C-alpha cells in the first residue's frame, strides 16, 4: 500500500473509532505482537479496540476496501500462533465486546458477545442451575470468540463434547463486511450445518459478533477418583478398562511424574509425588445414577491395581484435585524457562504406544517432556521443555514437536485435538490430509474470502506467512517457507 493510502486508511480508522482506540507504534502494540506461543512475534499495522458489533463491521469494511488483512483477537491465549498478528494487518481486539446479552433458562441458551470470557458464561448461568460445559484450562481468561475459532475443549468434554457441540447460532461478519446470521436457538437445524463449518475455522471465515450458546443443567453430583500407578502404562490400561466397562465418565485425565511434580509445587493439589502415572476419573450426573456407576467404577479401577486411590471427600477436595490438573501447563512452565505444548490425538488404544515413543524421542533429543493428557479421548499434551537462551535448544524442541505430530498421524490420529493448526502446525496439515482434501478446504476459503484478508497466512501450509520478529530461526524459516522482519 502506498504511504498516502496507508495514512488515509489509518485516518479512516481513527475517524470511526477515535484516536484512543486505534493503537499504532511499537510500544502500545507490544502486548499484541504474539499469543501464548511466544516463539512467534509479528508487528501489526494497527490494533483497534472495538466496542460494538457495528464497529467490527465498519473496521472489516474499511480493511476490505483498502485490501488490508485483519484478525480478531480475544485474550491472545492461543497456543498455536492463531492470534499472531498478520504482518502489517489490523488486529481487532474483541475484549470490550464482553456483554452477556441474554440467559434464557427455558430455552437453556445464552446469547453473548465474542469477547465474553468462557467462565463468565457459567457464572451468569449459575443462578438458574445451568452452566456452559466446555472448560479449557484457560477458561478464566480465554474468550468465547477464541474458543469458537479453535473448537476448544477441556477436561470435561468427553460426555458432552467440545465448543462446536455447544454453539447453536451466530452472527458473523464475512471478510468482505457482509453480515450474516447462521443457525438459531434450537439444537436442531435444516440444511448444511454452516455453524458447524464456522466453528473451528480459525478466524479464516470472518469474525463472529454474536454467539448463541447451549447451556446444560449443572450435574447434581460428582464422584471424583484419583488413582496412582507406578507406571504410565498401567494408568493407560485403567482407562481402557473403564471404557470397556460401558461407563461414560465426564472426564478421564492422566498426568506423568514430571507434570505431577510441577503441579504439586505450584498449587499443592495433594498428588502423590512418587506416582509415575496419575489417573483422574470423574463421574457426573444425578445422585442415584452416579451412586450406581461409582460402585462399578471402583471395581474396575481396583482391578487395574493402583498403589493408591483417593476419592474426593467434598467439593473443596474435588476443586483441589482439578486445580492441580488445570494449572499443569503453567506449572510445568516453572520447571523450565520455555516450553512448547503439543496437542496431537491418537486412537485411545494406542495411548501407551504413543507415550513410550514420545519418551524415547525426548531421550534421543536430550529434551525433557512432561505429559498431561485427556486420556478419555486420546488427546495428548506433551510439554516440551527447553531453554530458548541456549543456542539450538528451540530448534531441537521444535524438531521433537514435529516428530511427535508425525507419530500421531502415523498412529491414525490428528495433529490437533483442540489448540488448532494456527501458525505452528501449518506444515503438518498437508501430512495429515491429501492434496485434494486441502484443495477443497482452500476453495472454500477462497470462495468466502477471495482476497484472503481474514487471518491471512494461518492454517494452510502454503499460505503467505506473516513476517516474524525476533528469536532464532524457526524450521519454517530455515525451509524458506516464512521469513522475519
Amino acid at each position, binding site marked *: 500500500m502506498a504511504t498516502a493510502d496507508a495514512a488515509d486508511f489509518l485516518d479512516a480508522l481513527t475517524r470511526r473509532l477515535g484516536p484512543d482506540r486505534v493503537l499504532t507504534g511499537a510500544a502500545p502494540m507490544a502486548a499484541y505482537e504474539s499469543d501464548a506461543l511466544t516463539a512467534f512475534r509479528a508487528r501489526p499495522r494497527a490494533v483497534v479496540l472495538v466496542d460494538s458489533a457495528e464497529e467490527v463491521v465498519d473496521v472489516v469494511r474499511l480493511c476490505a476496501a483498502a485490501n488490508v488483512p485483519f484478525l480478531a483477537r480475544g485474550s491472545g491465549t492461543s497456543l498455536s500462533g492463531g492470534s499472531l498478528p498478520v504482518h502489517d494487518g489490523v488486529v481487532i481486539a474483541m475484549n470490550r465486546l464482553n456483554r452477556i446479552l441474554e440467559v434464557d433458562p427455558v430455552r437453556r441458551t445464552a446469547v453473548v458477545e465474542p469477547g465474553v470470557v468462557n467462565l463468565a458464561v457459567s457464572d451468569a448461568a449459575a443462578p438458574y442451575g445451568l452452566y456452559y460445559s466446555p472448560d479449557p484450562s484457560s477458561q478464566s481468561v480465554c474468550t468465547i470468540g477464541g474458543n469458537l475459532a479453535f473448537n476448544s*475443549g477441556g477436561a470435561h468434554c468427553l460426555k458432552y463434547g*467440545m465448543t462446536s457441540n455447544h454453539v447453536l447460532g451466530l452472527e458473523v461478519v464475512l471478510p468482505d463486511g457482509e453480515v450474516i446470521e447462521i443457525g438459531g436457538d434450537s439444537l*436442531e*437445524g435444516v440444511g448444511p*450445518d454452516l*455453524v458447524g463449518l464456522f466453528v473451528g475455522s480459525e478466524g479464516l*471465515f470472518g469474525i463472529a459478533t454474536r454467539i448463541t450458546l447451549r447451556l446444560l443443567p449443572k450435574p447434581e453430583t460428582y464422584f471424583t477418583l484419583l488413582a496412582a500407578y507406578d507406571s504410565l502404562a498401567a494408568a493407560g490400561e485403567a482407562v481402557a478398562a473403564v471404557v470397556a466397562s460401558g461407563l461414560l465418565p465426564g472426564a478421564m485425565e492422566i498426568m506423568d511424574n514430571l507434570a505431577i511434580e510441577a503441579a504439586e509445587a505450584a498449587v499443592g493439589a495433594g498428588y502423590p509425588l512418587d506416582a509415575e502415572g496419575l489417573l483422574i476419573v470423574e463421574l457426573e450426573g444425578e445422585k442415584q445414577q452416579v451412586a450406581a456407576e461409582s460402585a462399578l467404577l471402583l471395581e474396575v479401577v481396583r482391578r487395574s491395581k493402583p498403589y493408591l486411590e483417593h476419592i474426593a471427600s467434598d467439593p473443596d477436595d474435588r476443586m483441589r484435585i482439578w486445580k492441580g490438573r488445570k494449572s499443569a501447563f503453567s506449572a510445568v512452565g516453572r520447571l523450565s524457562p520455555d516450553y512448547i505444548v503439543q496437542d496431537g490425538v491418537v486412537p485411545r488404544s494406542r495411548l501407551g504406544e504413543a507415550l513410550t515413543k514420545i519418551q524415547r524421542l525426548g531421550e534421543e533429543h536430550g529434551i525433557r517432556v512432561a505429559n498431561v493428557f485427556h486420556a478419555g479421548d486420546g488427546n495428548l499434551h506433551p510439554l516440551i521443555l527447553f531453554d530458548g537462551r541456549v543456542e539450538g535448544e528451540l530448534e531441537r524442541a521444535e524438531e521433537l514437536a514435529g516428530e511427535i505430530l508425525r507419530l500421531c498421524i502415523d498412529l491414525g490420529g490428528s495433529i490437533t485435538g483442540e489448540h488448532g493448526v494456527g501458525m505452528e502446525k501449518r506444515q503438518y496439515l498437508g501430512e*495429515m490430509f491429501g492434496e485434494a482434501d486441502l484443495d477443497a478446504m482452500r476453495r472454500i476459503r477462497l*470462495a468466502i474470502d477471495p482476497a484472503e484478508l481474514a487471518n491471512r497466512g494461518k*492454517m494452510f501450509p502454503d499460505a503467505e506467512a506473516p513476517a516474524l520478529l525476533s528469536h532464532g530461526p524457526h524450521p519454517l524459516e530455515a525451509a524458506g517457507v516464512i521469513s522475519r522482519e
Partner: protein
Amino acid sequence: MTAVDHRPASAAEVVEAVGGAERIVPRGGGTKPALWSVDGADVLDVSALGGITEYLPSEYTVTALAGTLLAEVEARLAAEGQYLPFDPLLVAAGSTVGGAVAAGANGPGRLRYGGLRDFLLAVTFVDGRGEIVRGGAKVVKNAAGFDLPKLMVGSLGRLGVLTECTFKVFPHPESCATLRVAGMALDEAIEAAGRVGAGAVEIECLDLVHGLAGWDLEIRIGGRSFALDARLKRAADLLDTDVITLSGDADASLWRTRREFGWASPDASVLKLPLTPATAGALEQVLAGLDASHVARAYSAGIQQAFVAWPAERVADLPALDRALTGAKLTALALRAPANAANQPILGYRTGGELLCRVEQALDPAGRFGRL
C-alpha cells in the same frame, strides 16, 4: 419413481458418474424421496457402496460406506452394547448412512448427548468437480482443518456424494423405561416438560405427541438398572399427575415406532421443524391459521424439533404453509413429500444463504448437484 441412472460400487465409479452428468442427485435407501427426486437430474444410487469398513468398540468409532443400511450398523453396535446416540430416523424403512448424514435428521434420543452433527467424525465424499475429498479424522477428537464433516450434515446431496462416514458411538444405557402422561393441554404439557427437564433427572427422550384426546407427554429415562426405579419415581413426582410406566418391550417398541413415523399416514408429507419450547406456540399458530390444527404431529427431543404430517389432500396448500412459516421465522425440511412438490425440500425461513452460496460455488461450481 425416477429410474436409477448410476449404481457405482466404488468412490472411483462415483467420480466417473459425477463427471459425466450435467445434473445428478445421490440417493441412499430412497426413504426420503422429497430429498432426492429432482426434475431432470440423473439419480445416483449409492446402495452398492455398502459395508462396515472398520468398527473399533474400544475407540467408540465405527466407519461404514455411505450405502450401508443403518439397520446393519445398529445391529453391529448392539452386539457390543453400543449405539448411535443421535437416534437415526427411518432405520427399518431402509435409511442409509449417507442418506442420514445428508438429511441431517435425528430421532427423539438426540436429546441426551446430541445430534448426528455431534457424532460424525470423518467423511469421504465426491464433490461437484469429481474430486474425492476427505474431512475430519477417525478419532473422537480433532480440530485440524475446516470441519467438513459438519458441513455435510444436512447437505441433502447438494454439496457432494458421500462415500464413507465415521461416527462416534457410545455405550448403550443398561436399561430404559418410559413415563407417559396422556391427554394434556399443550401449554400444560410444555410446562410439565420444562419442570422435568429442569430437574436433576437425566432424560434420554422427551416427546409430546398430538393424539385424539389432546397431547401425550412421553419421557424416557435410561441408565444403570439398579438405579432406574428410583430415578423414574423422582421424575414422576415432578409430573404430579397420573403416570403410566412402560418398560421392556413396550418401552423399546414405542420409540422404535416413533422414529419410523408409524403415527403418520403413509401418504402424508412429513416435515421436520427445528424449534424450542418457546417457539412451539408459533408453529401452533401457523397451523391454526391454515385451518390445520388437527394434523398429526409431535414435538420431539425436548421440544427442539417438531415432526408434522401434512395431509395428502392439502398438498396444494404447501406454498401457503411455506409463506406462513417464513412469517413466523420457522424452517421446515420435507423428509417426505409428493414427488411433484419436491424440488425444494426446505420450506419457510432461511438463514446463511450468502455463506451457503459461496460454499456451493467452491464445491460444486457447475451446479451439478443443484442448489439449495
